[in-house]
């Protein structure tokens, strides 16, 4: 694998994660428990899809085969996507969305702070902007984890169950492959093995303060690095890609 191929693959991974999680958050529009929370969800969706736009544009430039960011978002099939399984999960109730957001935002903070130091200037630039946004996402999901965890008995039980159910999708965030080896060697991306301790510390502190238990590490799900996804991804893409697929000659 060449450096260029690895960079393309790696940038797609980052872009796809942002796109698919942004898609899920955007589904909260008009469904939030309070109008303020509706706005916050849409706001995070905007940040993530904006980040996806920048990353997929960069991926298209790295690939240099004449595809655009929209081609990458709208014209790849399920097996070509590289987003983690956790991003694809349905929103569930508000607590499940918050649990997922806390896990991913803590991961993003650890990752993007490192990427802001990347030797690749474009990645570093996108990451510097992302860090500012991710800090807000982490604060939002931390605040809500505290309120739900230490709120009522019902909210405590609901969000504990959400963390328990989602836990098996967490290890996959840190998986590495040949692409990572090249990115680390080139000084473009950090070694994901070094991110895990800090991530675990952030999550543990928030959960304990929220009177919640950190779930035990049991058997973990995997597949996204090889393009083997949840059944949900196909439906997400069917919706996301519908117009450009139905009208291939049209410009929007």
């Amino acid at each position, binding site marked *: 694998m060449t450096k260029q191929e690895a960079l393309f693959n790696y940038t797609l991974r980052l872009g796809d994660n942002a796109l698919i999680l942004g*898609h899920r958050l*955007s*589904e909260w*529009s*008009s*469904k*939030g*428990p*309070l*109008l*303020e*929370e*509706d*706005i916050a969800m*849409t*706001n995070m*969706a*905007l940040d993530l*899809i*904006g980040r*996806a*736009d920048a990353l*997929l544009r960069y991926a298209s430039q790295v690939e240099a085969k004449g595809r655009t*960011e*929209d081609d990458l*978002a*709208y014209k790849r099939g399920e097996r070509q996507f590289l987003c983690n399984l956790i991003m694809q999960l349905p929103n569930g*109730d*508000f*607590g499940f969305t918050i649990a997922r957001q806390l896990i991913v935002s803590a991961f993003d903070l650890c990752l993007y702070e490192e990427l802001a130091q990347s030797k690749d200037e474009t990645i570093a630039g996108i990451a510097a902007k992302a860090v500012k946004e991710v800090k807000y996402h982490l604060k939002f999901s931390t605040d809500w984890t*505290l*309120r*739900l965890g*230490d*709120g*009522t008995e*019902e*909210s405590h039980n*609901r969000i504990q169950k959400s963390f328990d159910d989602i836990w098996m999708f967490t290890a996959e965030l840190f998986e590495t492959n040949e692409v990572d080896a090249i990115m680390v060697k080139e000084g473009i991306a950090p070694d994901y093995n070094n991110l895990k301790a800090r991530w675990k510390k952030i999550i543990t502190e928030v959960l304990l303060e929220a009177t919640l238990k950190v779930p035990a590490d049991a058997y973990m799900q995997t597949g996204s690095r090889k393009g083997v996804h949840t059944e949900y991804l196909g439906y*997400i893409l069917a*919706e*996301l890609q*519908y*117009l*450009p697929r139905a*009208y291939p*000659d*049209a*410009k*929007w």
Partner: protein
Amino acid sequence: MENVNHLEKFQAVIDADSKIEPKDWMPEDYRKHLIRQISQHAHSEVIGMQPEGNWITRAPSLRAKLILLAKIQDEAGHGLYLYSACETLGISREELIEQLHTGKAKYSSIFNYPAVTWADIGAIGWLVDGAAIVNQISLQRTSYGPYSRAMIRICKEESFHQRQGYEIMGKLALGTPEQKEMAQDALNRWWWPSLMMFGPHDTDSPHSGKAMTWRIKRESNDVLRQRFIDKTVQQTEVIGLKIPDDKLKWNETKGVYEHGEIDWEEFNQVINGNGPLNKIRLANHISAHENGAWVREAANAYAAKQKKEVLVA
């Protein structure tokens, strides 16, 4: 009976084109009229998120998706400042939402029509927001201070929305034959309901009398509707679409476009709950509110615990 001195002073402030502020004395009917109008406006912003939200996940490009998300977020924000403006009149947000859910408070009937194709997102931005702006620009000069200031802020964002909608329509109208057909179809379906947004003809408008004296409303329904038509006809010609009104023609003497008769039967039916989506829009709002009850309860319980801890400390 209202205090005569108070009433004279109140009317003098209005006649001098100054603003009435929350702590000023105001006639009960003025307060009621404002609560009805501002809350209807706030609910319209919030319910109006639904037809557009219907297309967020299917927006055809990343750029279009980002713009649509930003627009819907703005609308939620407008809902928030309008609820706040309404709260200055002594009613809580919970009461306002309750009134929406029981049907006591209304929202703009236009949002009871479905956003069927992507072109509807263009038509909503261009026509529905375009009509709303004409009304809102006029309301920037409304006599109640908080409402006037909310309108000034909202107008700045609405003009971006209208351009966004027009841009979508323009791209479709100049695109493939299928896209152009989609654009014309959306215009055909949204044109008449947009004209209805201004309300009944001046001769049949039940709420306008005092609202004009109190300068809550500054211009009549028909004046505003005409302004919208005159502006929109030209924009339609630029992108090569056709307004679905055979009677539309330029009146040289009056300097305005004459238009065909609005279907007031349809207008009344939709206002009275028989539009395509009245029940569904409201049911969605109620369901989101009910599904969020446990979250709001948790937030209140958590806040109470925090307060207790501070007191103990």
